[in-house]
């Protein structure tokens, strides 16, 4: 087989340089997912459907930061990160996010499970882009043992790397954004910023009943298991899954009516009671400004030096 292309490597490099790392990463991701699932999944039986008495509050600077500032700044900053175009600034953004993570004392299991959630989608870019990115002048192409149809475009890999770094940088911020204030407070902050109050309340209601329905769904699926149901690739499985879905909908629609009745019976009149507001302080604004400057610096670095 004749060699061609700008860089060509013998065929045995393919498993070493590409297949093995990919396999190891996939295995790692699956292993970690199983671990995180075991640690964070609601137990089979334990009753998570009863809400806690109150929310816990932490003490980091992010916990004390005004929630309105936090939402606006993290959102704006996320958009700044997303607009980065080069690998190095994107990696720098990951560094900044890691620093924030440490300051906010976020739970590592939760952060890990978030990263795993995006692993599949981002992984697809790593697998596909080096193979499909069209070759431009100045691109470096790696060919293994003359397999021309499988030419790896390193620019594609770099592009995938940039996307991955940006995704990770934003994902790492989500845990500090959400876990440093109780969810109702965060959502209320959203409504103080102009979103209708009812949006926040709807998110909370969905969140509350999400747990109830997951619980219900889990009990239903053990009910099916006990009668010997195992998911397979066939039409019976699809029919059983459809019955399951149908039951899930019917039960939740019925519950919806009861919940709504309970709300009205307690005086709900189409409007949720609004929590009270605390005024902004100087330190909130200072922290916001510092953060925005960091974001702007990243964007400037991304655009100016090239």
């Amino acid at each position, binding site marked *: 087989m004749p060699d061609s292309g700008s860089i060509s490597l013998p065929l045995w490099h393919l498993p070493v340089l590409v297949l093995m790392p990919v396999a190891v990463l996939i295995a790692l991701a699956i292993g970690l997912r199983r671990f995180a699932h075991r640690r964070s999944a609601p137990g089979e039986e334990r009753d998570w*459907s*009863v809400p806690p*008495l109150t*929310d816990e509050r932490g003490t980091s600077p992010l916990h004390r930061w005004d929630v309105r500032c936090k939402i606006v700044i993290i959102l704006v900053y996320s958009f700044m990160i997303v607009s980065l175009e080069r690998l190095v600034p994107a990696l720098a953004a990951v560094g900044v996010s890691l620093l924030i993570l440490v300051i906010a004392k976020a739970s590592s299991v939760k952060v890990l499970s978030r990263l795993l959630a995006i692993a599949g989608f981002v992984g697809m870019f790593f697998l596909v882009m080096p193979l499909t990115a069209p070759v431009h002048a100045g691109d470096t192409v790696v060919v293994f043992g003359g397999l021309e149809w499988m030419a790896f475009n390193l620019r594609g890999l770099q592009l995938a790397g940039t996307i991955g770094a940006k995704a990770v940088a934003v994902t790492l911020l989500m845990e500090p954004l959400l876990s440093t204030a109780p969810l*109702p407070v965060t959502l209320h902050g959203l409504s103080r910023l102009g979103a209708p109050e009812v949006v926040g309340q709807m998110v909370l209601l969905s969140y509350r009943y999400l747990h109830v329905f997951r619980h219900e769904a889990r009990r239903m699926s053990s009910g099916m298991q006990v009668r010997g149901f195992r998911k397979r690739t066939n039409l019976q499985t699809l029919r059983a899954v459809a019955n399951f879905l149908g039951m899930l909908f019917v039960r939740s629609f019925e519950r919806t009516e009861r919940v709504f009745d309970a709300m009205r*019976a*307690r005086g709900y009149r189409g409007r949720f009671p609004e929590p009270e507001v605390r005024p902004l302080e100087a330190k909130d604004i200072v922290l916001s400004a510092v953060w925005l400057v960091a974001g702007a610096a990243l964007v400037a670095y991304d655009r100016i030096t090239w």
Partner: protein
Amino acid sequence: MHDQPLPVQRPTLEATLFSLQGLFYRYPDETLALSDIHLDIAPGDRIALVGQNGSGKTTLIKLLCGLLQPTAGQVRYKNQVIEGEYLEHSRLKIGLLFQDPDDQLFGHTLLEDAAFGPRCQGLPQPEAEAAAQAALQHVGLAAMRAALAGLLAMKPEVLLLDEPTANLDPHQEQVFLDLLIGFSGTLICISHDLIFLYELCDRAVVLNQGRIGHDYTLRELVSQRQALREHGLDFSFRLVAAPAHDEPARPSIAKPEAVTATNAGPTASPVVDLRRYTYRYPDGTLALRDASVSVRAGERIAFVGENGAGKTTLLSCMLGLHQGQGEFLFDGRPVTRRRRKALWRQVGMVFQDSADQLFCPSVEEEIAFGLHQMGLSPTEIRQRVDRTLSLVRLEGFEDRVPLHLSGGERKRLALACVLAMEPKLLILDEPTAGLDPRGEELLLTILRQLNVTLLIVSHDMFFVGELTRRTLVMHKGSIIEDVPTHAFLQDERLGNLNGLAYAYRRRSGEAIHALQHEHEHDHRHRHLHAHPHPHGDITHEHLHEHEHRHPHRFMHSHPGEESGHDHLPRRYHDHDHPDHDEDHDHSH
């Protein structure tokens, strides 16, 4: 319809809290749910609202708090019709509690949830939270009680309760009962549990097919077995074996057990043998600690213990749903990972909530589902479906939709689905939860006839006593006692050990039992007796013959359970004779 309707003290017009006049309600699909309801409720009334499933109790309660508007007639609250602005205003004084606390606890945190009502009443946040905090402290944090706290924080004048105790263990129920007894306002409670109602309420309103069948005192309701039976409320079958005259074993259940015991032989290995079995939830909480149980073929065992004691977890392990650490032998062979996955062929379980188990669009498909999974032939499936349907008294239900059946029918269908698979071991998780007395009685009859190894998780001591010979008491994930059922039932200490306060049920049960067998009779008496009486200014004493009618009460017993109440009037018994002192004329 029934004899001796004693008049209830009717509230006067000024003192009426709720006044319902000629009330009709039709569902959107035009079915008539309530018709011609006239009811006056005075402040401080404690009303038990009873009747069969589908008799319109919940609809009536929803009309009372304005969640539904009557099709015709009026609901007046404090002499004003509940509608419009007045409805919104009065609703803040009326608390409504549903059976499932999850419907009620819609807040993100309990504190926020309990503060929802007060906030809707217009209190500012700090005060609302203080009220919520106070209510939660008073009531406690267990789900059902926290739901009640959400209402009490609003300081309601009226509490409407829809089967509040259906999911509570005896201890919880006792606490809940005490809280309700301590509530000073008006109370209207729907329940099938007349023993609970007997403690709580003093007036009973019986609904029958959307009409008020009776409105009298609760004592009267429970004492008239005939009336109870007509409304499907007869729970007296429970009182027959009241603990006072409990026998170690009832012949009806001893029989099948004896048969299987001889079949299996004394040396047969246990069906289930768990040794030092431990299970942790995925988050590390210990659910089961060193549990050891051995179940022999044909045994009937009860598992009792407070909610969260680990009963359901233990049974899920036996079912193969969970994998814990420790030794687990099924039929004498260790359960490997592979065998665990196949345990469903030999172990069947009826869940507490039938809705978790029924998911097919027809009864026939529902029963056939498991049989298909077992790989049986269509004719075999057909036969088994027919056989089990007649076993659970659901003949002719093949094409009905499981979701549309009544609670009792659904429970029996769930049982049928499991029985059709002919399991070696049958597990029942709270079989009586949410059933009306008629459904309970039928279920009991069916279960008595079965010839399987049976494990029952229940808070229902009557069922435990009727169906089992051996009781395992669980507490905080461990099995702390393993005793014969009759010994458990007679042992106050065991009952109270882990907060299983059955005492009040026993007490009330005995009181009701006594009531039911004390009747007022009105019949002719003929006496011949001596008594002093005046003749002008002389008073003397000699034998007289009298004949007179008058009502009187006496206690009696029913030697044969079903003999009814038509006994001969006893001739000789003590009673007073008000007319004896009168002057009367006769020859000396």
